[in-house]
């Protein structure tokens, strides 16, 4: 089970609202490579993972992704504070605002709501961990793209932290994939599914 810690993993203190930027950053909440999907992916994949080290990584990274989701929500929340109706219209925030006001709803930057079709849980450790490696690179790419449009240090600083985490997670999933592959024996030359096909 889980328990909540009343703190952010890394501080978020934004002074200047920027709803245009908030609409880009919210994609890391509800977009195809966002933190909500990441948490659901890793926490779903744990049950069919055959080795304790890989289960540990999926559990602990999946938990960290929930903390990252909270950081993204804090950034979006602070970027959309104290807006006037004119600012909402002028900065292109009215289409989100009309449905959600300044509440947090998981959507991609394009406005498409979060969808479980953005990830897989295959029951095959090699397929799952290979997806996880790609997922971390795709999230890193989104943070790189967000940083192209961010000139506010208060926003860029936590976004850079989150970008770094994607790189560390990529390393750790590489370790986990190596552990799974090291456990395949000579009879498993073609890498059958060690969670299902017992030989």
């Amino acid at each position, binding site marked *: *089970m889980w328990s909540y810690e009343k703190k952010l993993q890394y501080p978020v203190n934004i002074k200047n609202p920027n709803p245009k930027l908030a609409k880009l950053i919210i994609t890391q909440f509800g977009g195809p490579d966002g933190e909500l999907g990441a948490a659901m992916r890793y926490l779903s994949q*744990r*049950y069919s993972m055959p080795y*304790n*080290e890989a*289960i*540990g990584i999926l*559990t*602990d990274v999946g938990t960290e992704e929930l903390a990252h989701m909270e950081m993204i929500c804090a950034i979006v929340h602070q970027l959309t504070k104290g807006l006037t109706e004119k600012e909402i219209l002028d900065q292109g925030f009215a289409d989100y605002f009309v449905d959600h006001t300044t509440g947090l709803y998981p959507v991609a930057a394009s406005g498409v709501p979060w969808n479980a079709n953005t990830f897989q849980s295959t029951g095959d450790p090699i397929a799952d961990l290979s997806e996880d490696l790609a997922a971390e690179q795709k999230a890193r790419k989104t943070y790189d793209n967000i940083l192209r449009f961010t000139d506010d240090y208060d926003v860029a600083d936590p976004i850079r932290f989150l970008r770094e985490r994607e790189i560390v997670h990529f390393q750790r999933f590489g370790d986990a994939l190596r552990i799974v592959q090291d456990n395949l024996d000579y009879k498993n030359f073609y890498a059958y599914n060690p969670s299902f096909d017992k030989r």
Partner: protein
Amino acid sequence: MNDNRKETLMRKIQAYGFTAHECALYLDCHPNNKQALSRYSKAITEMNEAVAQYEGLYGPITVQAAGGQSWNWVKGAWPWQNKED
């Protein structure tokens, strides 16, 4: 390793933890209720004692309690695995 004592201790942790959680839910909306406040603190004390006992014998429940000569967080069964796993 799957002795009766381990299961009994875990049942205690679950019961005290659930009591504390129920009190917390109530206290969130009734923060001045003295009875709930003392019930919460009693349950937390009981839970912490049981957790300390359990972790000393069988390993960490939270990652904050993990450590050892070799990282004991990834040792032993995970909570969704039944005894046959």
